[in-house]
């Protein structure tokens, strides 16, 4: 069914080459006085203003997986998939509350990762390690899923042969990831920051064109909604229940709200989002950005509607069926069937480049975590900045190779399950990280215990949840106390209860608190606006040689 279309292919390859050039060139963008500082490689010199931060944070928010998975969910289940829009609506106001404090304390104390903040705040190496391990565990499958996103585009475009040999079949993917690793290694966070411009232009163009062009070709919005509504009313023979619904049903409201809230709370404790926040130049940059980032939410809402458009195109439905009922193919198929081949090439490039940017940021964030919380903390406390940077570069390489191995060796379902687990896990670092920005009331050991209990509970609960034809890891929401809710949120409540109860117990028995190296003023500090002309020129007049 999927013949290689020459025009689509050429456009896809050309845009990949352009992005590669930008990636390598970015090493010379805003040159640092000393490029071998971890804050230079890993945080772009902490010098990104409003404009660049906007692209960088947007690059975190939506990845190839969102581009593919959100409409796929809407395609398969209807309104329930729209929780992603609700999530992106509430995420920015939530982050608005705590991100400036986080930025300030990291700036004053020189933290590059959340793990360092937790260690410094609670004087607990163990708690810092717990946060770091959770961060890396949750990030790895997330990177792997970017590859899964690229793969579904390549499958539909007909790139990548159907050979049984893994290396031959996935060669395009391996090449793309190899090139990405090379320029990330060289340029650090500057590479994804610059490429994010191209990515976003392509995505905005694709989404706007799709929303204006496709409905007219398939009979208008009224027709799209009516087709979807009719389909979701039919009964799924496998479950004996309707496929879905066009509006969330009362029984699904708890799941919808808790999925949205849980995802929103989790997003900015993911290492890659924290990296985006730390790279900002000033405190105001973050707040201003959080007011401007909803532009991405709007795009995400429109992308979610692609699921209904795909449902209204019989050729897409046939293609999904032919692909083994894989609804992840619905958006690439929609592009291939609806757009002329040259524009399908642009749309496919948007997805592929949309995968490369977050994959790069994620691997850098994970590398920062490893370098600061393992290498510098445990292995070599007297490491020089240059040694740190070298270790971080290598670690980013390992993360990508690991993710590639993941995506190629394990089956897709497994990666998606792990991503689901990652979301549950990462939220369990919230009490130690975000709450600690405000209070040290929780005892460090109680936080560790709460984290451990919640991690175990979340993992077991996810394992026990059937759905989508699988006995385990079938869904991210499960019945708790009579309501179907997002497992991560249930685990978070458990986490908080355990932490609070044990804090009281530990205080009672007089267990010692850790030393807090931060000061109250650290949390509200900002850079003094630079006086005179120096404020205008970002780089020093004479770079030292």
């Amino acid at each position, binding site marked *: 069914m999927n013949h290689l279309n020459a025009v689509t292919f050429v456009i896809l390859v050309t845009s990949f080459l352009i992005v590669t050039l930008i990636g390598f060139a970015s090493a010379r963008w805003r040159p640092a006085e000393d490029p071998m500082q971890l804050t230079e490689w890993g945080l772009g010199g902490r010098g990104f203003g409003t404009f660049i931060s906007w692209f960088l944070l947007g690059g975190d928010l939506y990845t190839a997986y969102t581009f593919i998975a959100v409409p796929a969910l809407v395609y398969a289940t209807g309104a329930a998939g729209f929780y992603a*829009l609700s999530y992106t609506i509430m995420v920015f106001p939530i982050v608005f509350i705590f991100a400036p404090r986080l930025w300030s304390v990291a700036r*004053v104390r020189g933290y590059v990762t959340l793990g360092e903040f937790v260690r410094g705040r609670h004087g607990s190496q163990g708690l810092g390690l717990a946060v770091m391990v959770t961060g890396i565990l949750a990030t790895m499958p997330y990177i792997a899923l970017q590859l899964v996103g690229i793969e579904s585009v390549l499958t539909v475009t007909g790139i990548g042969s159907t050979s049984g040999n893994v290396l031959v079949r996935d060669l395009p993917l391996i090449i793309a990831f190899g090139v990405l690793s090379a320029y990330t290694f060289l340029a650090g966070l500057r590479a994804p920051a610059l490429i994010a411009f191209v990515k976003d232009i392509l995505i905005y163009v694709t989404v706007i064109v799709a929303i204006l062009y496709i409905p007219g070709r398939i009979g208008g919005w009224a027709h799209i909604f009516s087709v979807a509504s009719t389909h979701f009313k039919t009964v799924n023979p496998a479950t004996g229940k309707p496929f879905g619904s*066009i509006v969330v049903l009362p029984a699904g409201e708890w799941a*919808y709200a808790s999925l949205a*809230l849980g995802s929103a709370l989790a997003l900015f404790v993911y290492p890659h989002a924290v990296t985006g926040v730390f790279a900002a130049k000033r405190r105001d940059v973050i707040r201003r950005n959080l007011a401007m980032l909803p532009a991405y939410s709007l795009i995400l809402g429109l992308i979610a509607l692609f699921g209904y458009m795909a449902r209204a195109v019989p050729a897409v439905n046939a293609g999904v069926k032919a692909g083994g009922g894989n609804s992840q193919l619905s958006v690439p198929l929609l592009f291939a069937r609806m757009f002329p081949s040259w524009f399908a090439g642009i749309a496919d490039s948007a997805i592929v480049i949309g995968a490369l940017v977050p994959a790069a940021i994620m691997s850098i964030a994970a590398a920062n975590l490893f370098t600061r919380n393992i290498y510098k903390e445990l292995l070599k406390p007297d490491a020089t900045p240059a040694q740190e940077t070298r270790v971080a570069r290598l670690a980013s390489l390992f993360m990508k190779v690991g993710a590639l191995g993941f995506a190629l060796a394990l089956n897709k379902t497994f990666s998606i399950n792990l991503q689901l687990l990652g979301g549950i896990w990462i939220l369990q670092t919230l009490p130690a990280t975000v709450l600690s920005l405000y209070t040290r009331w929780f005892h460090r050991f109680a936080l560790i215990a709460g984290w451990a209990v919640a991690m175990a509970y979340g993992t077991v609960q996810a394992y026990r949840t059937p759905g989508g034809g699988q006995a385990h890891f079938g869904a991210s929401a499960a019945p708790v106390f009579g309501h179907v809710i997002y497992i991560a949120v249930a685990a978070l409540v458990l986490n908080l209860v355990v932490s609070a109860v044990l804090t009281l117990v530990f205080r009672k028995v007089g267990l010692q608190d850790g030393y807090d190296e931060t000061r109250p003023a650290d949390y*509200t500090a900002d850079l*003094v606006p630079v006086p005179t002309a120096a404020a205008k020129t970002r780089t020093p007049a004479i770079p030292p040689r």
Partner: protein
Amino acid sequence: MAHSAPSRKRPATLGTVAVLLIVAIIGALWVPIYARSTPKLGPFPFFYWYQLILVPVVAVLSWICFLLLKTRPTPDAGPGDGGGAQK
């Protein structure tokens, strides 16, 4: 790399910001308000157009919060790169 003293905001300002942000969050979190198909806006059921319109509304609320909390450049530091002094 100098750091300024913590900026102090009046409780009234902080209260306003808190209310605006809570309104923004509840608007998306309280699903029963919008889990319905009518009134429709053209072919769009309420569920969809409510959420799509909520996005710019939340952006405006956040922007107001940003302006309220904006740190004023200290007088001796000269003009910052923003819109100048607030209030």
